[in-house]
């Protein structure tokens, strides 16, 4: 039952209601006059569509190419997979049996085109009697069906009926260009177009549910299995089948999906990714079994389908060397990253990459191994930026200078530079020291100072008071106004101080904003020195 234009109408009915003369689209008031005891529930199209998608996914046991069809059907491309079931009739029988077990009323048709199958399933097939015309009989099988079976919109159907064309067969003798002229105006829904699709004169690609795997291995069980040990054995077999195939092709898998088809029609998945192409059965099986506890087998699993979505070329010598040979070090590293990544997520694994930036937190960034590209960098300052930089106390920094060493030499009017070479004995450019730990974001502290331009005399950080005994600085670091990120920040100028407290711990403090400005500047601890 669904609300439509202020009235409540029937959206779908069961066989008993149909027998009583009800039909979808009938107003509820009329329906109740036929059947006063009619039980109704509100329609839930979203849940229906989800259930249909789930059903389409479950049908993945027959073929990788499945998709829900409008609101009431599932299309399955079985070209090339019917023989695995002993022919189309046997496949249809298996499908019918399994659907019946799930209490799903169904009508099945198999035809050589999507259009023909659509028509046959809806207008020729009856319950428990699939429509399976031989390819050469399809034309004849479609002829007695009403023109609606061609997937036409209601106006076109009305138009055809007005000129007395009620059955598909009556369209066969019509001149095609006349049909196209008269009823072909609405493009894809045109009669001629639909006819061509039904007879395979026009291709109609099936867009499958989700991504289509490039390789698939399936394992069916006579008795549903649920025991983890059985599942582990099944995984090992599937993976061996797959890796044998990959080895023949000289390929390695990058992205895999293992589907567990439960007897209640639900499908559970384990998805894994690998950092490098792999066809090592032990490694891949290990990745799957590590995640096996995320799979709820329900009452049992009747099929397992291992699908590969991404492969890459993998020469034999790279894959087959094993053990601690140093040549396989990269390979071992990749499998370690896979194990870690599949437990913590690839996001949790990162490398530290240097960037060309004055801003400390941007000069060294953690890049997840997943996103790592190796050549990314923050935008360089535009021509002329260097001069502005000098005004703010940043020395010249050529935008073309190499990215390493990672610290863009940014030496402010610091006392450190005066220390008679002490601490900077080697290297032409003196760099103020950088901390080993950096807080992102910087942590605010309560600081008290005597002279606005000086470092604080003491500060409270994490509820602990630190008395400043020594300090170096300031090193002024100005915002990179030429980056999009930079222009958004309010505290464009930071004066950094290296301070040592009475215990000897060394902090990297900075003052955000100018010393004499209003509101008063705020202090942050940005990092810790070892």
């Amino acid at each position, binding site marked *: 039952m669904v609300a439509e234009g202020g009235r409540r109408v029937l959206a779908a009915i069961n066989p008993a209601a149909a027998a009583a003369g009800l039909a979808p689209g009938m107003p509820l008031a009329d329906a109740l006059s036929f059947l006063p005891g009619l039980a109704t529930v509100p329609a839930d199209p979203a849940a229906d569509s989800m259930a249909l998608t789930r059903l389409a996914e479950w049908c993945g046991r027959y073929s990788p190419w499945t998709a829900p069809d409008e609101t009431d059907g599932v299309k399955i491309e079985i070209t090339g997979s019917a023989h695995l079931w002993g022919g189309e009739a046997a496949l249809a029988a298996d499908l019918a049996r399994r659907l019946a077990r799930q209490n799903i009323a169904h009508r099945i048709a198999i035809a050589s085109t999507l259009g023909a199958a659509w028509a046959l399933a809806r207008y020729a097939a009856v319950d428990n009697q699939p429509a399976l015309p031989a390819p050469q009989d399809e034309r004849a099988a479609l002829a007695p069906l009403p023109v609606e079976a061609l997937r036409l919109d209601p106006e076109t159907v009305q138009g055809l009926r007005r000129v007395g064309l009620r059955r598909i067969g009556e369209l066969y003798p019509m001149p095609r260009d006349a049909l196209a002229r008269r009823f072909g105006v609405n493009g894809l829904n045109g009669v001629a177009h639909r006819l061509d699709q039904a007879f395979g004169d026009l291709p109609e690609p099936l867009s499958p549910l989700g991504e289509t795997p490039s390789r698939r291995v399936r394992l069916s069980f006579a008795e549903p299995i649920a025991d983890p040990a059985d599942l582990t054995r099944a995984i090992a077999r599937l993976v061996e089948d797959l890796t044998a195939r990959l080895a023949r092709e000289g390929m390695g898998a990058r992205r895999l999906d293992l589907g567990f088809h439960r007897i209640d029609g639900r499908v559970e998945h384990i998805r894994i990714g690998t950092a490098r192409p792999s066809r090592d059965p032990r490694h891949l099986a290990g990745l799957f079994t590590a995640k096996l506890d995320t799979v709820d087998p329900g009452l049992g699993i009747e099929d397992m389908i291992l699908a590969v979505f991404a492969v890459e070329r993998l020469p034999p010598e790279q894959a087959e060397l094993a053990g601690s040979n*140093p040549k396989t070090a990269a390979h071992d*590293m990749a499998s370690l990253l896979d194990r870690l990544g599949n437990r913590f997520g690839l996001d949790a694994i990162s490398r530290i990459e240097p960037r060309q930036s004055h801003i400390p937190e941007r000069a060294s960034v953690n890049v997840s191994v997943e996103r790592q590209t190796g050549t990314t960098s923050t935008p360089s300052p535009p021509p002329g930026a260097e001069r502005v930089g000098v005004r703010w106390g940043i020395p010249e920094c050529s935008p073309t200078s190499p990215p390493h060493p*990672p610290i863009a030499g940014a030496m402010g009017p610091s006392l450190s530079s*005066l*220390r008679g070479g002490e601490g900077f004995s080697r290297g032409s450019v003196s760099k103020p020291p950088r*901390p080993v730990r*950096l807080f992102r974001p910087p942590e605010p502290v309560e600081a008290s100072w005597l002279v606005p331009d000086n470092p604080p005399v003491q500060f409270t950080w994490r509820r602990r008071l630190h008395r400043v005994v*020594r300090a*170096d600085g300031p090193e002024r670091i100005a915002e990179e106004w030429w980056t999009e990120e930079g222009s958004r920040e309010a505290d464009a100028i930071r004066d950094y101080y290296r301070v040592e407290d009475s215990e000897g711990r060394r902090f990297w403090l900075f003052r955000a904003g100018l010393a004499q400005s209003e509101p008063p500047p705020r202090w942050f601890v940005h990092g810790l020195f*070892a």
Partner: protein
Amino acid sequence: MSQTARLAALRDRIRQIEQPARHGVLPFAVAAIDSVLPGGGLALGAVHEILGTGGDEEDGAAAAGFAAGILARLCPHPPAAGAAGPPSPAVRERVKTDGAPITFSRTAGEGARGRSPRAGEGLVLWCLKRPDLYGPGLMAHGFDPARLVLVSAPRDEEILWAMEEGLRLPGLAAVVGEVGRLPMVASRRLQLAAERSGVTALVLRRWRNGEEAMAERERPSAALTRWRVASLPSRDELKLRDDPRLRHSIGRPRWRVELLRCRGGVPAQWVVESGDVEVADATGHVCLSAALADRPAAAPNQKPGRREAGGLDAEPWRRRAG
């Protein structure tokens, strides 16, 4: 047999049984420290704990700096077994006497002479809760952050799991983990994995708060050594004392390094001064503070003793009792 000779023989036997240096050692190249460590350096293929002090027990900054200095000179182990070319003399010697507790030093100099892989090469897996390591800062301690693979995991158990996975991989130079709790069983598992693969593990203890620190600080573990590193206040440098502008500027980093536990060794402590953190320390070396004798930073229960050690004006203060 004199009593000392018998003691030495016994000590050797114990060392053989324990085999703390089965995979060789990494000397600190500071005689005063290396002489205390069994085998003359930090045992490779073993677990070492590093602690902080005071507030740094939570932040682990000094521990990270100390670890970076060690990592800077570590490389994958065993070095290139089966790689092209004849093994270097040191490798050959090790192979010949495999199983016997022979030790040889793998210093930066040796690595530079063409051993493969060289010291300071190979990836380091560093597992921690929040990736707060800063590349330029690590670089300053001689450790190239490009060698790092960081793994962030929210809980100690997960970090220990990741460490153990890493320790199974002989191709890694080292595995570092930052954990609060290190249960005995977990540390033993790490130690076994490290012994098997020859990969060295550093466990930086980082406690959330004072209570956790209190509960964990003294808890034993299966690690071969336990170190505590504390930053010390800067020394007043004579040449700077006269310049009023520089009187309060910060000097070179100085650490008090304590060897709290050492299997087959004696606890000791030293004051080390990072030679030149910004540049020269690119070798990861530390040197003992030259002014050590003038300004002992020893805890009250320790008695300064003085002896010439390797030309350095320094000697560890050993604890009087245990």
